[in-house]
């Protein structure tokens, strides 16, 4: 091994996000401009950078999770997308998305790497470890 890089994920690719949603059994709804949530900001958690409380409930696209009362808002900010969602338990998203939405982020990263690797004509070998890691090996 000659070098190792750690990445801070940014969601920039709607196709990869759609693929991730499909893999998780979620429905990506293009152009849906509102998402379901509690409806009132209680101020008990920090908002994502660039999001004001007036922005909550508004989005550019949405993700519908079967069985959940609340939805995920996909908000375009400059060249990336921010996911907004209410993790209040009764909304049903916390289990489906995992803490901080990590299950959706893991699937997005997986799909994004696959799309990028295919464009460069890499062969992709996907494995999952017992601890839940996804390992993508790319070879030419």
């Amino acid at each position, binding site marked *: 091994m*000659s070098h190792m890089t750690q990445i801070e994920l940014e969601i920039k690719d709607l196709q990869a996000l759609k693929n991730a949603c499909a893999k998780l059994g979620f429905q990506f709804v293009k152009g849906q401009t509102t998402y379901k949530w509690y409806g009132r900001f209680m101020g008990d958690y920090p908002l994502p950078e660039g999001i004001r409380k007036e922005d909550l409930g508004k989005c550019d696209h949405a993700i519908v999770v079967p069985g959940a009362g609340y939805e995920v808002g996909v908000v375009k900010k400059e060249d990336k997308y921010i996911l907004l969602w209410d993790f209040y338990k009764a909304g049903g998203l916390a289990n489906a998305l995992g803490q901080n939405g990590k299950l959706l982020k893991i699937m997005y990263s997986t799909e994004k*790497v696959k799309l990028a690797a295919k464009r460069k004509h890499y062969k992709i070998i996907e494995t999952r470890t017992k601890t839940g*890691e996804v390992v993508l090996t790319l070879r030419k």
Partner: protein
Amino acid sequence: MEEIVVTIDEEGEVTIKVNGVKGHSCTKMTEFIEKELGKVKERKKTKEYFQSVHQSEQAKQRV
């Protein structure tokens, strides 16, 4: 064998490694994935990375 290994851990942290490539070209190999996924938080160069650069410098001097 040259390969890129992308690991996404259970918390969603992404790590990219290159195997079987010596010298600076390994960083070029992963550039496209880094750009598409987000920002580089940390990049660690291993002994193999520096060794091969040193070797190629020696080779140039001999010529």
